[in-house]
């Protein structure tokens, strides 16, 4: 569904390359985690996927057509995005915010139809935020607000969902909750998810594939459990890692510590 071909990007001619020659592809119906240390280019890569940034060299193909060639409105019906810090300073109600997700389907004059309202109700139900419908988003907690943000993106009825560290600022309950809802969508509706994630263990729990990035390059990529290797993670993050079995599910988790010479 997505093919990244020899992708290069930098923010300015005088600046070093942020993305240095990426090549990989993403299958439909997969949940791919983009992992890597701070500043490795995860957010930039997602912005290139969503068409917010344009590559300097190479292309990203979405359904065999370069992202930059897609009509932005048509693309926004296919690809939705949840940013890390979703904050709204105006006191829109939660439902009004989710309704904004239908924007790519509305005409300049024509308002929301019955189908649109049904979709909004359904995604709010899926994220268990119907009870917050009339609450101003300025009054919601971080976890509630992020569920509204995910609902808004799902209201776009996308084929691909981009998550930019969408759960980084949340407590464990809300992180697991949101990731579970999203994985259900992947399994039942064949949604494709590309998620920049900081937490390797969260990625290990939910992702079917991973792309490890370091300094703008792909360090390793492939199905998740195979990539949970101590040497690889030590090398990328500069920490000691120990892999062990997940106590609750099939799969692996990792424990970390600073290398010996830095241990306090």
């Amino acid at each position, binding site marked *: 569904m997505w093919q990244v071909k020899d992708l290069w990007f930098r*923010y300015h001619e005088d600046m070093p390359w942020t993305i240095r020659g990426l090549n990989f592809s993403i299958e439909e119906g997969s949940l791919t985690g983009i992992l890597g240390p701070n500043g490795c280019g995860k957010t930039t890569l997602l912005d290139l996927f969503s068409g917010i940034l344009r590559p300097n060299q190479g292309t990203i193909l979405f359904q065999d057509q370069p992202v930059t060639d897609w009509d932005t409105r048509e693309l926004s019906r296919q690809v939705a*995005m949840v940013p890390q810090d979703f904050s709204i300073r*105006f006191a829109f109600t939660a439902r009004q915010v989710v309704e904004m997700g239908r924007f790519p389907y509305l005409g300049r004059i024509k308002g929301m139809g019955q189908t649109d309202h049904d979709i909004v109700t359904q995604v709010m139900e899926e994220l268990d935020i119907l009870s917050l419908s009339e609450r101003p988003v300025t009054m919601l907690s971080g976890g509630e607000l992020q569920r509204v943000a995910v609902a808004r993106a799902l209201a*776009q009825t996308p084929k691909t969902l981009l998550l930019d560290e969408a759960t980084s600022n949340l407590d464990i309950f809300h992180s697991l909750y949101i990731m579970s809802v999203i994985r259900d969508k992947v399994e039942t509706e064949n949604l494709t998810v590309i998620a920049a994630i900081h937490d390797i263990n969260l990625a290990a729990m939910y992702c079917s594939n991973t792309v490890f990035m370091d300094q703008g390059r792909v360090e390793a990529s492939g199905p998740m459990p195979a990539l949970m290797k101590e040497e690889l993670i030590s090398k990328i993050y500069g920490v000691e890692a120990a892999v062990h079995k997940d106590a609750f599910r099939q799969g692996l988790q990792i424990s970390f510590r600073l290398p010996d010479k830095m241990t306090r």
Partner: protein
Amino acid sequence: MRQTISAVFLYMLLLISILSSARLGYVHIPFHEIIHILFSGMSGPHDTASSATAAIIMDIRIPRIIAAALVGGALGVSGTVFQALLLNPLADPYTLGISSGAAFGASLAIVLGVLGICLPKFVSIPLLAFTGAMGSLFIVMGLASGSKGLSSTNLILAGVIVSAILSAAIGFMKFLADEQVGAIIFWLMGSFSAISWDQVLLMAVVTGPCIILVQLYSRELNVVATGEKTARSMGIDTARLRVLLLGICSFWTAIAVSISGIIGFVGLIVPHLLRHWAGPDNRWLAILSFPTGALLLLAADTVTRAILPAEVPIGVLTALIGGPFFCFIFKRRQVELQGGF
């Protein structure tokens, strides 16, 4: 529902206010006579009513009243659009340096008049005010645009910088203007006292298209509130939208400022007041902020024209009443919405 009722109510109230404020003034004119003059004024030259009364109504009061309403509406809608677009509760034509640009252009026109260069004032003031406003908008947008497009914080910062430079330049104009300095000061403080039908007509012609365009883009304005990246991921070209809407509203403001001088706080207060009453949905705010701004400015102008013993410049009056009032609603909203607005 609440919004529909508010809209109907506000537009009716505006119509009533326009008619009834025509009654107020130094010369007492009964209501039925005003209606009579208005209708005969529309159907042909004044014949029945005494021509003096007709002249007061048709040549002095009505143009002034309509101008005040149209300018107030323009400032109200512009303020709403600026705040929604820049996600900043302090954004209005002032903070972006647009009013200062218009003021600089107008003072330049007055000074050039003093020096004996230039066109007659009724042409040169609007023309240069408009040029000044658009000029400063372009400079502010140029300063604010970086590699990542126009950021709203940068826009406000650039607006403050440009305003500071322009106000020094206006100071210099005052110095140059010598005996004419009174004209500049009067203009800087705002006034509707010498409005002609030509000016009203100009303002009216501009108002229609501007308000329709703003209304057509009001759904985009809502989506912009979700943030730059989210809005762009929904297919909105945010940079283009900013240029377009800032352009429309700056143009509208510049025309308003060129006929009335600088009038503060209307553009700032109207959106705050309405969000409190009707919620943050810009599709309604755009419709409601026009009559609200119009009513506020018409009321202020009627106070200074007909109720106060001597005419206070309208800009001074709106700042003196509007400033503290703005402080009050701003504080209350901060408490209510925990930092939202």
